[in-house]
């Protein structure tokens, strides 16, 4: 039986009503947040953050400049290059006769100006060797982590940045360039793996951070910036920073003062509860402008990124407020920061609405439904051609045959 659309429509109606009632005070909370942002005292914030560090319930960002600052984009250079990567994967399927997964990395290299050109390609790779499918603790080899689900997502991110490094090495050296990734520079997929340090070491330190090191080395040789772009960002770090400002207590001891209160009823919720950073900056930024730069306080970055602190700013890209994340060595170089701002804005205008290089990398990477079916058939046919046992679960078989 297919989905009962009548029943579903009634439930969607109820959901909309619930959302509307939940949203009643939202507008006034956003206005309150904007007021707080405009009279934010960065020095006071830093002091209170320091005194409340042990007792805060929130991870708050570093605010090195006036958070209400607005910056117009510098002009983009006449000639420049944007390289972007994106990935998709076919996860391990226990109903398949072989344990394997596939990662497809899409790459787009767009050159603008007098030698305008484009290179679009993808690099699929099948992982099926025993060592490809697990991450082993080198100190204690019996400990291993199977690569699937969130860990596979993280492995894919590592492959995306590795492909970015390879593509960046081939860029023409005489024009400015931007290397762009999709999503966050912080490997949030691995947040739940704090107790499996060998996983974090291999994927973050030896994978992602090693690639960041190489990108920084390339940036030392030419005018080259690195960033990631998040469309419709759900971050609320800046909004949470405002909580500290509206907190009525000298030291924010969240659990002691407000631990018994429901979310939405705490004093700091007044200009923060349920609001995203993008909604805050939609009120303050004009099209093309970027916000101040903030510093992420993610524990993953502090513990594993080896000095590549992740900074971020919000950008009014014309159609939406996007979030741009950059390594500290880009944020601290005024020229590279300006180049990042100008080129991402330019990319969004060409998009339109979303960086065109990322869109084309995604198009190269995407694995469609028919691709997935072809992959499964190809695995089964090849194994059977080699006279290897081909079996499938009865569940998988029944889904395919759909007996009446």
């Amino acid at each position, binding site marked *: 039986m297919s989905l009962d659309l009548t029943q579903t429509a009634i439930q969607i109606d109820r959901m909309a009503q619930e959302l509307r009632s939940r949203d009643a005070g939202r507008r006034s909370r956003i206005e309150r947040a904007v007021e707080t942002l405009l009279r934010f005292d960065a020095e006071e914030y830093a002091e209170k953050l320091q005194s409340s560090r042990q007792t805060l319930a929130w991870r708050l960002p570093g605010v090195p400049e006036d958070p209400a600052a607005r910056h117009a984009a510098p002009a983009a250079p006449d000639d420049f290059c944007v390289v972007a990567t994106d990935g998709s994967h076919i996860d391990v399927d226990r109903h398949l006769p072989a344990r394997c997964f596939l990662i497809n990395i899409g790459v787009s290299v*767009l050159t*603008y100006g007098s030698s*305008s*050109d*484009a290179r*679009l390609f993808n690099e699929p790779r099948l992982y099926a060797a025993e060592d490809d499918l697990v991450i082993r603790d080198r100190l204690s080899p019996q400990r291993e982590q199977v690569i699937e689900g969130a860990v596979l997502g993280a492995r894919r991110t590592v492959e995306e940045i590795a492909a970015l490094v390879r593509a960046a090495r081939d860029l023409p050296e005489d024009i400015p360039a931007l290397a762009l990734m999709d999503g966050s520079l912080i490997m949030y997929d691995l947040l739940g793996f704090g107790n499996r340090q060998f996983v974090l070491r291999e994927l973050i330190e030896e994978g992602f951070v090693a690639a960041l090191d190489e990108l920084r080395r390339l940036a030392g040789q030419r005018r080259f910036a690195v960033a990631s772009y998040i469309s419709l960002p759900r971050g609320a770090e800046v909004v949470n920073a405002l909580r500290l400002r509206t907190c009525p207590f000298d030291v924010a001891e969240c659990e002691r003062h407000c631990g018994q209160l429901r979310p939405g009823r705490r004093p700091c919720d007044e200009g923060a509860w349920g609001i995203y950073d993008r909604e805050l900056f939609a009120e303050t930024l004009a099209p093309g402008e970027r916000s101040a730069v903030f510093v992420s306080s993610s524990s993953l970055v502090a513990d594993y990124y080896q000095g590549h602190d992740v900074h971020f700013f919000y950008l009014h890209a014309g159609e939406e407020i996007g979030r741009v994340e950059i390594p500290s060595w880009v944020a601290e170089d005024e020229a590279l920061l300006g180049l990042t701002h100008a080129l991402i804005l330019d990319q969004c205008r*060409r998009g339109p609405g979303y960086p*065109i290089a990322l869109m*084309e990398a995604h*198009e190269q990477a995407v694995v469609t439904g028919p691709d997935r079916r072809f992959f499964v058939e190809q695995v089964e046919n090849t194994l059977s051609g080699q006279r290897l046992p081909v079996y499938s679960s009865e569940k998988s078989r029944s889904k395919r045959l759909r007996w009446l």
Partner: protein
Amino acid sequence: MISNPTDRLGEVIEASTTEFTTQCYELYEAPPLGALVRCGDGPSALGVVANIETRSMDPSRHPIARGRDETTEEGVYRSNPQLNRLLLTEFRSLTVGHGDGGVLRPYLPPQPPRIHAFVYRCGDEELRAFSGSLEFVPYLLSSQGGASDDIVAAFLRHASESHADPRKFLVDAGRELAVILGAEVQRLNGVLRRLAK
């Protein structure tokens, strides 16, 4: 006949006994309507270009207007370099002959060209040799698609330029057309008017 790789227009991507489709290596680099093209050095097929199409490589992605702020069409492509990789030009040719041991035969080949056969535009010498006889013209005139008269006229105009006396060639071709289309005076006049342009 040995071809120079730089003269190659593209490759056959679809072929049947009566027609073949070529994907161009370069966007918008199709030969003109009515041009004579050949597959390979045999050649395995000779065709007259009957339709040219430029479209998105991915049928699920549609081009959108991008030039509001550009002053020239070239500017649109310069500002969006990916377009050259995402659009493609193809042309369909009606098969009108083939090579057979060094002789050009003005009738259908025993087999269609192979997929990925290299496609070249015929030079003046081939065009002159092939258009010496207009035996294939009735077949072209009866081809489907509604533009057959334009295709024939365009072919004859191209062919005339390969002959020493283009005007004489067109007059002779007009006479042959008058025999073929004798019963369709209006249609004959239409083709002759197109020849004169």
